[in-house]
C-alpha cells in the first residue's frame, strides 16, 4: 500500500497549484462568471500551452497520453484551486473522445485549444442511455434535444449520444444554427450549461460503430465519474483548509473561535470526513484505472464522497458565518461545485441501489 502520487504526478499537481494561486484570484473568478466562455481567451490559451488539455489525448494528437490517474491528479488540483470549470470540462471532453476514438482528427484541435467540444448526453427526462429520445436518422442527421449540457454554447462541436437503428450511437455534430439551437440555462456550479435542440443536424463524424455505443459510453461515464471524485476531493481539501485557517484567526468573546470545543469538534469531523473521502475516492480512481475493481468501490466512493463534500461545505459556511457568505468569497464557488458535481456524477440513490443489489441480490 502506498497512498502517494508518483514524482511526475506530484510535479503536475504542483504546477496546477502554482497556476491557480496566481491566476484564480477572487476578482478574476467573479469576472469569469460573466464571461460567455467561463474563462478569458488568454487564460485558456495559457492552459492549452501548459499541455493540460491533452493529458487524456494520444501523442499523435499533441497530447501526453496520460493515464486516468494522471487526469485525476490534474483535475483534483484544478478543483482545489478553483480553476474554471471550462478548463476541467475541456480536459474531460478530450479524455472522453480520446477513449472512444483515439484517431479522431478533431482531437488535435481540442488539445491545442483551437476548438472546444461539449459532451451532449443527458436529456430533460433521461439520464440513462436507454431512455434517450434524441435520434440519429438514416440520413445521417440528429434530431431531438439535449439538456444541461456543460459548455455547450461555446463549444464548436457536440459529441451527441442518440438512439439509432440497432441501439445507441455516438456522433460529432457541429454547433451551427439553424440545425443546432443552443440556449443557455442559468444554473450554478460554473459549468456553463445549455439546452440544445437538434433539428436534422448533420453528423460531422461517427464515433465508434453505429448502434454499438452503449458499452463504450458506460465505460466513459465511469471514468468521468472517477474524475468527479478527484475534483470533489480537491475542493473538499480546500474548503477544510479555509475553515481551519479561519477559526484560528477569527476572534469572538475575546478569544480565537478555535478555542471553543464546539468549533474544534466541527473541524475534527470535517477532517475525518475529508480523510475517509480522499481514500475512498482514490481507491476507486486507482482501481478503475487499472481495471482491478473487486466489488462496488466506485459506487461506494460515489455514495460517500459527493455527500461528504456537501457536508464539509455546509460546515465550513457555518464556521465562516457572514464572512464566507459574500459573493467574492471562495466558499460559495466550492459549495456550488459540490452540488453541481454530485447531481451530475455521483447522485446518492443509484449508488446506494447498486450497493444494495450487490449485498442482497447476488
Amino acid at each position, binding site marked *: *500500500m502506498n497512498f502517494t502520487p508518483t514524482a511526475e504526478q506530484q510535479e503536475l499537481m504542483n504546477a496546477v497549484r502554482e497556476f491557480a494561486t496566481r491566476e484564480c484570484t477572487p476578482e478574476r473568478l467573479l469576472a469569469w462568471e460573466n464571461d460567455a466562455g467561463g474563462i478569458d481567451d488568454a487564460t485558456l490559451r495559457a492552459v492549452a500551452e501548459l499541455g493540460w488539455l491533452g493529458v487524456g489525448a494520444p501523442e499523435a494528437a499533441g497530447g501526453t497520453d496520460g493515464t486516468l490517474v494522471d487526469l485525476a491528479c490534474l483535475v483534483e488540483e484544478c478543483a482545489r484551486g478553483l480553476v474554471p470549470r471550462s478548463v476541467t470540462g475541456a480536459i474531460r471532453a478530450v479524455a472522453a473522445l480520446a477513449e472512444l476514438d483515439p484517431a479522431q482528427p478533431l482531437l488535435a484541435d481540442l488539445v491545442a485549444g483551437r476548438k472546444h467540444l461539449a459532451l451532449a448526453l443527458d436529456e430533460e427526462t433521461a439520464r440513462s442511455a436507454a431512455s434517450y429520445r434524441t435520434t440519429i436518422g438514416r440520413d445521417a442527421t440528429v434530431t431531438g434535444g439535449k439538456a444541461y449540457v456543460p459548455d455547450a454554447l461555446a463549444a464548436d462541436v457536440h459529441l451527441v449520444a442518440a438512439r439509432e437503428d440497432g441501439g445507441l450511437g455516438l456522433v460529432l455534430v457541429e454547433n451551427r444554427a439553424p440545425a443546432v439551437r443552443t440556449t443557455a440555462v442559468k444554473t450554478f456550479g460554473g459549468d456553463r450549461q445549455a439546452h440544445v435542440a437538434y433539428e436534422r443536424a448533420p453528423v460531422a463524424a461517427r464515433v465508434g460503430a453505429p448502434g454499438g455505443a452503449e458499452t463504450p459510453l458506460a465505460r466513459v461515464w465511469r471514468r468521468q465519474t472517477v474524475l468527479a471524485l478527484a475534483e470533489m476531493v480537491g475542493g473538499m481539501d480546500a474548503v477544510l483548509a479555509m475553515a481551519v485557517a479561519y477559526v484560528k484567526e477569527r476572534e469572538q468573546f475575546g478569544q480565537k473561535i478555535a478555542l471553543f470545543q464546539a468549533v474544534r469538534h466541527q473541524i475534527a469531523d470535517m*477532517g475525518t470526513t475529508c480523510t475517509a473521502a480522499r481514500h475512498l475516492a482514490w481507491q476507486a480512481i486507482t482501481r478503475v484505472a487499472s481495471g482491478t475493481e473487486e466489488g462496488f468501490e466506485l459506487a*461506494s466512493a460515489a455514495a460517500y464522497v459527493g455527500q461528504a463534500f456537501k457536508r464539509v461545505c455546509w460546515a465550513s459556511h457555518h464556521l465562516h458565518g457572514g464572512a464566507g457568505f459574500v459573493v467574492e468569497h471562495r466558499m460559495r464557488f466550492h459549495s456550488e461545485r459540490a452540488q453541481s458535481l454530485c447531481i451530475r456524477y455521483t447522485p446518492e440513490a443509484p449508488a446506494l441501489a447498486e450497493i444494495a443489489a450487490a449485498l442482497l441480490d447476488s
Partner: protein
Amino acid sequence: MDYDLSPRESAWRDEVRAFIRDHVDESLSRETREVGNEGRGPRARKFLDALRDRGWWGLSWPEAYGGLAKTAVEQWIFIDEIETAGAPMLPLTATSVAPTIMRIGTEEQKREWLPHINNAEIDFALGYSESEAGTDLASLRTRADLDGDEWVVNGCKMWNTMAHMATHNWIAVRTEPDAPKHKGISMMIVPMDAPGVSVQAIWVWPGLRTNALFLDNVRVPRSYLIGERGMGFYYAAMALNFERLSIGSVGMARRHFRALVNEVRTREIDGRRLREDPWVRERLARLQVEIDAARMLGLETAVALDRGGVPASESSMAKIYVSELTQKIADAGCEILGLNGQTHAQEPSALAEGRMQWLYRIAPMLAFGGGTNEVQRDIIGFMGYGLPRK
C-alpha cells in the same frame, strides 16, 4: 498511488486466513458468545496458544526480542482478519505490556519479564482508571511509597478487566506526590497473589465481567517499577500507541454487519422477502459505505505508522468513526430484524447469532471507552489541524 496489498501483504493475509480456517470453528465462536467474558474459555485459550506457537504473539515486537517485526499494515491485516472471523484477539499482555517493557524497561527487567510473557506463564490485567480518574487519567490517586527496597501500594483501580484471571497487574501509580500531576505517575507490576490484593467483580451491561482492584498495603520489590520514576503517564500514552490499530479496527462491526446481511437475504416477514424492503436496502447500503470509509481510516493509521509517524489524529478519526458506526449498525440491526432483534444469543431462534442486541449494548462503550470521543476530537483538532490549545 496504490491501494492494493503488496505481494508480501497478500501472502501474509492468505497465511492468516489459512490459520483461521484451520483453527476457528463454530464451537469457538459459540464459546466466545456464551462465556460472555472476554473470550477466555478453554477453546479461546487453545486458539491463543496456537497463535503463540506460531510466534504471532510477537507480531509487532522487534526481532531482537524474538518478534516478527511486522509492518503496521500487516498488523492491521491480522487484526482485521481475526476480528472479521470472530476469533479471540491477542491478549494485551502481548500487544501492550510486552512492547512497553521492550521499549522502556531496564535490561534486568527485560530478562525478568519477557521470557515469562513469551512462554505465557504470566498474564496481565491493565490498571489505569480509577473512580475519580477516567478521562482525566492524570488525576489518579493510587499511590506507591518507597519503604526500604519495597514499594507499598495503596488504592483502588476500576475497570480492571481480566484481573480475576490474570497473574499480574500492570498499574499506573502516583510515586511523586509533590510533582505536577502528569509527572508524578509511574508504571508498576503487582503480582495478583501478593498479600493485600483483592478483586471485586463488576458486571457491565453487555454481560461482561470487569473488576475493581483493591490494593491495601501491597508490598512489591523496588525493581517492579518499570522504566523511569514519574514517566508513567507518558508510558501509558505510548502503550496506547501500540493499541491504535486495534482500537480503530472495524473488523468486529463488519463481522456483525455481514451476519445481519445474511439474515436479510433469506428472511421473510408478512409473506414478503425482507431484502425487497426499500428501507432495509437503503439502510444496509449506507452502512456498507460507512464500513468502507471506516476501513480506509484504519488503513490510513497503519500507513502513517509505517511511515514512522505517531498517527494520533488519524487513529482518533478511526476510533470515533468505528465507535459511532458500530452504534448505527447495532441500531439498524435490531430494527431490521424486528421483534427477533431483541433476542439473546442463547435463544435458538436468535438471528444473526443474537448479536444485534449485544452490539446495541456494547456500542456505547466503544465511544466513551479507550479515550472518549470528545477527547479524540480534541486530538484531531490539536494534532491533525494545529488548532490552538489556549
